[in-house]
Structure formats: C-alpha cells, structure tokens
C-alpha cells in the first residue's frame, strides 16, 4: 500500500506593504557616473 505523506507547508511570511511613492535606496556601490561609462 502506498501511504501519502503529509508535506509541511512552506511558511509564507507576511510581506510588509510598501508605502505609496516608496523608492528603494540605491545600491551603495558602485557610485554614480559623472561623465560616461567606457
């Protein structure tokens, strides 16, 4: 007989809703290009 095992449900973390207009911070590096990128 084949027994069906219970599979643990992956916990779903509640996502924190981002406020309207939220802009994620830029990555710390590399920095901004001042002229142009070769």
């Amino acid at each position: 007989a084949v027994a069906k095992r219970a599979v643990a449900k992956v916990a779903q973390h509640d996502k924190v809703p981002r406020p309207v207009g939220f802009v994620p911070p830029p990555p710390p590096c590399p920095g901004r290009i001042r002229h142009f990128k070769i």
Partner: protein
Amino acid sequence: APAAPPAPLGCDDPEAEAAAEVALSYINSHSHHGYKFALNRIENIRVLPQKPGDDIMLLELDLLETTCHILSPMPVENCTVRSFREHAVEGDCDVKLQKLDGKLSVLASKCHSHADSSEDVLQLCPDCPLLASLNNTEVLTTVKAALDDHNSKNADAYLRLLEIGRAKIQYAPAHVVYVEFAVAATNCSAEAAKENVEACQLLPDDQSNFGFCTATKVISPAQDFQVDCHLYGHQVPASDSAFLCQDTS
C-alpha cells in the same frame, strides 16, 4: 552589549567623495606624464577600522582623461574630460588612504589606463580619428615639423620636445594627423638656436617654463598644416607636503 557595526559606506556618500577627491589630487600631483585625470565613478570603497579615530580606506576609482596636460597649472576641476568622440582614455585606480582623526592621507596608489576600444568609437562615430601609436612614423614627423614650424616663426625662447601626449590619425574622408605634445623652453632664443642648437639646454626645474602644442596636418586631399603652441608660464614645482606618501606606483 557591543555597539552595532556602522553601516557600510556608500560610494556616493560625502565621506567617500571626500576620500576620492584626496586620492585624485594625489594621483594627478604624483604623475609626471600624460594628462590629468578626472573622477568618473567611485567603483568601490571599503573601510577597515584600525583604532578609534583611525581607519584605513580602500578605494577603487574609475577616472577619465582630461585635455589638461599633467604640467598644466589648470586645476583639474576646470579641465575638460575627453569626449567619447576624441577616443577617451580610462584610468582604473586602487588607492589606500588613512583617515586619522578626520584627516585623510594617501598611503599608496596603483593605476592602469587604457583607451576605449576602436570598435566602440567607430560604432558611434565612423569618421572619428582614432588614437595612434606615439612612435608611429607619421606622428613623429608631424611633431617634428610642428616644433620646427613654431621655432622658426617665433623669436622667443627655443622650445624643445618633452613628450608626445596624444596622436590621432584619420584616413577617411581626409588623411589627417593630429598630435599633441608637451614642450619646455630652453636657455636659447630661437635666433641663438639657429647657430648651435646643441647648446640649447632645458632650464633647471626651479626656472622651468613648460608649454603645450597641438598640430593638425592634412595630407590629402589638400595639404594644410596648423600649429598652436603656448607656454604655461613659470612653474613652481608642486610640494608633496600635503600628502603623507609612503609608497606609490
């Protein structure tokens, strides 16, 4: 409980920009050839705390060549960055600084420069002249002709070649050689140099008067030759006392 470590420094943080400025000054003031470089981007920064008030900062900088020769007294902030069409040259520098009680000093730096690829330039600008080797025969003859031309038309100090800074050759639609080179005044007048050019010596460092020349030689379809030289005026050698240099390359 121990205090949480400070947040890593971002490449656009004022503290990182201040360190990059000190590093750039150091790089330009310790270079004796070519052109001044301007900051294009802070690629990375790492802060290694040593003791309270004493940090080591490791900077990776992306620089771009400017139109100012390294001997030019022009502050680098006023120098124009070479455009993409001029076949830009990039400098990659690793700089080690110490920040002691808020004061930054450079401990070491290592830079490599390389020109943008010809394919990149031609893709955006098919007619743009490309950088040529500084020992190219056409480049050398153009530089010599330009210096001879200037010295023959000016009664002031006889100028000698210090170094060729840049050369570009265009083959189509016209065959044109562009050169840029640094010069220095000698102790001879142009008239005296005609008598015995071998006797003309560069002035000692503390009296040196450097300059810069550009020349454009059109070879075809019609021949033309334009030379422009100017002297920077008497230069006082820059002091290194502003930096605590232990090692550089």
